[in-house]
């Protein structure tokens, strides 16, 4: 109990003894974790967009004869990567066209006989499978033509891969920067108390006991930075989503409160871990040197 109280009192002393430095470290940590969180949100949004496009991506296979729809659908269902198959008769195709044209549907009467071909609407497990599924469909003699927006899906997949790599790059740079700032702050704290640490070690304090307040200081600064960044990201992103919804209703941003909460918790965990590791490295090195006999 005495030890616990001492460690807490000492951590408090460390944080406020050089309050300017603590504040600077805290601001840096907030900025760094804000960067990490923002790049993670950028990655989540691009993935969300790609997933949406993938889920809506249809491969449309036009069949020569309506009587063959059932047979072609059965064969299409067996192609690897096909999630579902739905057939569209010529009559249904005409109904859809009329619905889309709304007030101008009367214009279709000039066509006379229904010229729209019967077709199959095929949904895929993954958008990247579209070209191979299309090739297999085209190989069927009953199929006249196949269309799909595969190019768009490919481009989005590339954007998603880039976003992931970019986020990882930002993560590595930001975490390294944050660790270095925390490491130096703890080193300055240690330096300012080197005499005290020397006496502590000479009177029988264990290395863990000496290290604990410094490690706790690093963890608190890391956690404070991550918490500040999480709150900023939470508030800022909510405002961004509302703004986009009001001005660009056709653009849908990623919005999943549980995922955002998870992101906040990950940032918090990351802040504590970075603070712990960097401060432990700084103090452990100093203690090892101080204990090494001449």
């Amino acid at each position: 109990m005495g030890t616990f109280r001492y460690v807490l009192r000492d951590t408090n002393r460390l944080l406020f003894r050089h309050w300017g430095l603590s504040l600077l470290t805290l601001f840096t940590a907030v900025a760094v974790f804000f960067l990490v969180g923002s790049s993670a949100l950028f990655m989540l949004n691009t993935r969300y967009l790609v997933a949406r496009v993938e889920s809506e991506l249809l491969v449309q296979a036009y069949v020569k004869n309506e009587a063959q729809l059932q047979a072609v659908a059965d064969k299409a269902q067996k192609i690897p990567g096909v999630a579902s198959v739905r057939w569209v008769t010529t009559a249904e195709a005409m109904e859809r066209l009329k619905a889309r044209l709304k007030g101008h549907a009367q214009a279709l009467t000039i066509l006379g006989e229904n010229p729209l071909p019967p077709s199959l609407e095929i949904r895929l497990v993954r958008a990247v499978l579209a070209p191979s599924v299309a090739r297999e469909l085209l190989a069927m003699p009953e199929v006249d033509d196949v269309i799909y927006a595969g190019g768009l899906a490919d481009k989005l997949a590339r954007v998603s891969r880039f976003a992931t790599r970019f986020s990882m790059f930002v993560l590595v740079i930001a975490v390294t920067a944050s660790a270095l700032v925390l490491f130096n702050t703890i080193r300055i704290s240690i330096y300012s108390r080197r005499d005290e640490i020397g006496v502590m070690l000479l009177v029988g304090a264990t290395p863990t006991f000496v290290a604990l307040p410094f490690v706790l200081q690093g963890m608190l600064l890391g956690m404070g930075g991550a918490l500040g960044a999480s709150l900023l990201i939470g508030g800022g992103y909510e405002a961004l989503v509302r703004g986009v919804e009001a001005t660009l209703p056709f653009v849908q941003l990623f919005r999943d409160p549980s995922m955002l909460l998870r992101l906040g918790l990950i940032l918090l965990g990351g802040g504590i871990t970075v603070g712990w590791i960097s401060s432990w490295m700084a103090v452990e090195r100093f203690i090892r040197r101080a204990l090494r006999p001449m």
Partner: protein
Amino acid sequence: MDVRISGVTKLYEPDIRALEDVYLTVPKGEFLYLVGKTGSGKTTLLRLITREVMPTKGQIAVGEYNLRKMSAFDLALYRRDLGVIFQDFKLLPHLTAMENVAFVLDVIGVPPAEVKERTGEVLERVGMWRRRFLRPPQLSGGEQQRIAIARAIVNSPSLLVADEPTGNLDTHTAEEIMQLLLSINASGTTVFMATHNQFLVDAYRQRVVELHMGRVVRDEKRGRYELDGDF
């Protein structure tokens, strides 16, 4: 704790021979003066005992501890049983006299109530209770020395190592400090005291070990100060 030093040599870079082939056995409860000229190796010998310095050759054992081989945790345990009075006091200037003494108990996890009680007792013993709320810069040299002694004995060590504990003190204060060290010794603590104070060594006769150029040149029970190394 008893101290056994066998064939210890200490070389500092590049080629300074601080101690050479030192053999010394100090039984538990003994009071020993370490005398010798400046640079004779007294402080190095004391720092070997506190394990701030490692011998280049030879063995050093204190009680159950082999100082050559010990983990960081064992070193902490060993140092808890060791009181050290530094030549330069090493008091922490931002702490009060009382906090400086309590600090030793705080950092080894002694409960607060016990810290208060033991700190009070030891401050009374060294005659510093009235001055307990002053910080080291507000205290005289003698008072700082008393606080350094209080800090060294507050954990009831088995071995007390004192490096010039009466240096820069007037004769009267030096005698008071000496009385204090003798009373600590009387309670069973082994005392190693490095000193240049001829008056004290001659007035309070104890075992005297003289070092000259890193070698033990004299080891006398109830010896006097005069330095053989001068001749």
